[in-house]
């Protein structure tokens, strides 16, 4: 392997050391164990945020009453830093699954909610007119025009939220956990296993990349007309 000078392996282990550790942890199943724990927490918190964020977003975006009631609440709670909530989450939900799910949900909820609201409100008035003139009523307009037209926005919100989720899961596992990639990274640093720190960083980055790539592919499959517009504009 190529080496650029001699570095202290505690500060900067060589790429070959990291690679060997990576493969060893992959074979032993240790890496998978931590990754699966992180992903599971992320999946639960993210799904909760997606369901509640999209539902509330549709209501707020479409019904004036919901808009007037929830908008001040949203504006008030939105600036709260999810990372700052971690100690509270531990007090309220302990160091188990609950606190991590709470923090992930709080962090990923707002991008989903705000994009859903923006998507619904951005519905082309011309589409609304066309549907109304074909006899569609208020609820049908929401279901057959506003939701499909907001779908690409919702998808963008889900994508942003997912990348935030990957950041926040690591932070929350660093504060309180007995496993997971965030715990692995911090715990290895404490015992000077910098190579494992790097393995953890690489693993979480790869997972984040794969998840976002999956979301992008999903977007292209679900919304072919958006893709066509991008090509025309390019």
């Amino acid at each position, binding site marked *: 392997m190529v080496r650029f000078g001699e570095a202290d392996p505690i500060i900067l282990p060589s790429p070959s050391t990291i690679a060997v550790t990576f493969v060893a942890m992959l074979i032993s199943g240790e890496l998978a164990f931590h990754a699966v724990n992180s992903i599971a927490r992320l999946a639960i918190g993210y799904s909760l945020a997606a369901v509640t964020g999209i539902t509330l977003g549709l209501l707020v975006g479409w019904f004036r009453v919901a808009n007037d009631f929830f908008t001040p609440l949203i504006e008030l709670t939105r600036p709260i830093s999810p990372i700052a909530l971690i100690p509270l989450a531990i007090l309220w939900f302990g160091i188990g699954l609950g606190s991590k799910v709470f923090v992930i949900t709080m962090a990923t909820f707002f991008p989903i909610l705000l994009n859903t609201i923006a998507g619904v409100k951005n519905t082309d008035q011309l589409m609304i007119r066309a549907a109304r003139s074909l006899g569609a009523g208020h609820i049908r307009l929401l279901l*057959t025009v506003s939701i499909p037209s907001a779908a690409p926005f919702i998808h963008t919100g889900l994508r942003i939220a997912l990348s935030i989720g990957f950041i926040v899961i690591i932070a929350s596992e660093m504060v309180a956990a007995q496993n997971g990639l965030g715990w692995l990274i911090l715990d290895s640093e404490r015992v000077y296993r910098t190579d494992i720190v790097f393995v953890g960083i690489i693993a979480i980055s790869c997972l984040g990349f794969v998840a976002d790539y999956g979301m992008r592919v999903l977007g292209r499959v679900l919304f*072919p007309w958006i893709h066509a517009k991008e090509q025309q504009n390019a």
Partner: protein
Amino acid sequence: MPSRAKIEICNVSKVFDGSQRSRTAVFDNVNLSLSDGEFVSLVGPSGCGKSTLLLCVAGLETQSQGKIFLEGKLITKPGPELAIVFQEYALFPWRSVIRNVEYGLEVAGIPAGERAERAREKLALVGLIGFEDYWPHELSGGMRQRVAIARALVTEPKVLLLDEPFGALDALTRSSLQKELSRICQATKKTVLFVTHSISEAIYLSDRIILLSKRPASIRLEVETKLPRPRDPYDLKFVALQEKLERMLLEELPDETKAIAAA
């Protein structure tokens, strides 16, 4: 109210209330009636409110004064009896061609099998058989507008309203679609209200042409075209009528430009 007319527009005015100072009268005291099967064009300088008038007839805008009747019944809301086609097509990009056409039938609760059959029938009428499963973004502008016409016709509306439907198309596509529309209207005997700023398009298609003045628009002139169909835009009578109407329309223009500059 009046009996025989398909559409009856009575003393209709529209004022846009911006703020206290910027009340804009769009059109003023328009009276017009369309008999069954008649093709009527509204022609006027751009911004004269002809599209707004069409939206009022469609029930998509409310007029400030006056009443509009469909077969003697007051129009209060939009519905499948009054189909409208927009310049920008307004197709649903997330639906395939056939599912776009089926939309009005879906709303009406028609079962899937019959829906597909009736939608295909209308696609055949506009010459788009074979394109059922295409996405709107895969079609040219002219084809998209054909889909929009099929979608408007699928609920068997009593009146077809078209708002500068060929305005965004190139000249060749435009003239071929004019021919198609003329044929479709002859075949279906629909009552049509057509908004355009093209005099020759209006003469080519209409039984009667309504020339509107600049804003606030009022009816300046009504002309029965009385030319035999299919019409030939190079026919002498056609050209003479076109010249006459274009001269009148031009008279409406200079002030209109001033009005826009002042606004």
